[in-house]
């Protein structure tokens, strides 16, 4: 039976980039300009992914650097079974997760170790007529809210809702159950709703 490492959802979201295939072949053959070209093509996506997963500029820059150094060493092992960008993003995600584990963030049991404290957890919403989101949340407000999520929520939200990974893929990466991944994602969205409502209220008060 033939197995493939390609992830269909990600492949659809990462179409080939003009000039990438040529740069890739040349970089594999030791062309320094080609490696610089690959960096130029992918630095923004890789850095933004790191920043969203880590919520910290300095760490995100370190991990971007680490990802490209790793890419330099592993370039020869890219076989083209998935889009290059998919492969590079997966490599980056793995490096960031490894970094978080080294930092002491236990990803093995999300529920027990990176569940937020009571005050960080989203509030239940039974029977209260809370105002709805306005429907015009801007990107900056959303990015800011994502950055303030507790680490476990943030990881699952970024991987699922932004990067398009499936729950089973996230569960494998974080070494947790798919049920756990679903539950963390739901709590992340609830927490974001709270944060965005607070942000909208603060903006309204400033204007008033």
């Amino acid at each position, binding site marked *: 039976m033939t197995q493939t490492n390609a992830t269909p959802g990600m492949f659809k979201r990462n179409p080939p980039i003009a000039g990438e295939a040529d740069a890739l072949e040349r970089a594999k053959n*030791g062309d320094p300009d080609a490696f610089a070209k690959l960096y130029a093509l992918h630095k923004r996506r890789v850095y*933004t992914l790191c*920043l969203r997963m880590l919520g910290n500029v300095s760490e995100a820059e370190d991990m971007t650097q680490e990802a490209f150094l790793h890419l*330099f060493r592993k370039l020869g092992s890219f076989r083209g079974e998935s889009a290059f960008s998919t492969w590079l993003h997966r490599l980056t995600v793995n490096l960031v997760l490894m970094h978080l584990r080294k930092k002491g963030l236990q990803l093995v049991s999300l529920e027990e170790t990176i569940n937020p404290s009571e005050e960080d957890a989203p509030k239940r919403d039974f029977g209260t007529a809370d105002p709805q989101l306005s429907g015009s949340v801007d990107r900056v407000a959303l990015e800011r809210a994502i950055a303030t999520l507790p680490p476990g929520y943030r990881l699952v939200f970024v991987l699922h809702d932004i990067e398009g990974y499936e729950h089973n893929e996230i569960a494998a990466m974080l070494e947790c159950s798919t049920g756990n991944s679903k539950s963390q994602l*739901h709590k992340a969205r609830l927490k974001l709703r709270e944060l965005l409502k607070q942000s909208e209220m603060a903006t309204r008060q400033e204007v008033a």
Partner: protein
Amino acid sequence: MPDSTPIRTIDCAEFQEQLPELFANSKGGRLSDDPVYAQHLSTCPTCSALVRDLEYIAEQARMLLDPGSDIDPSEDVWNNIQTALAGTNGDEGGGKPNGHSPH
């Protein structure tokens, strides 16, 4: 003859308990066509507002993957990569990057 079996009613707690699974199964589409959930949503403004907001957040998040949302790292990142690779010989990977800025 139309089915006159009454639809089971659920409360907010039960509905919200089911939400993670309902969202996971919806695959980006509408939550559920199950009349049990549809009935609750049509009669409960709190839960319907909650669902609309959570769908909206997921929709906005998907838009963040747009390349226009990506941010440039500082110049230091490329400089550090070059420095780190300066002592690496070319046969380990893709060759030693030159000093030119890729920007």
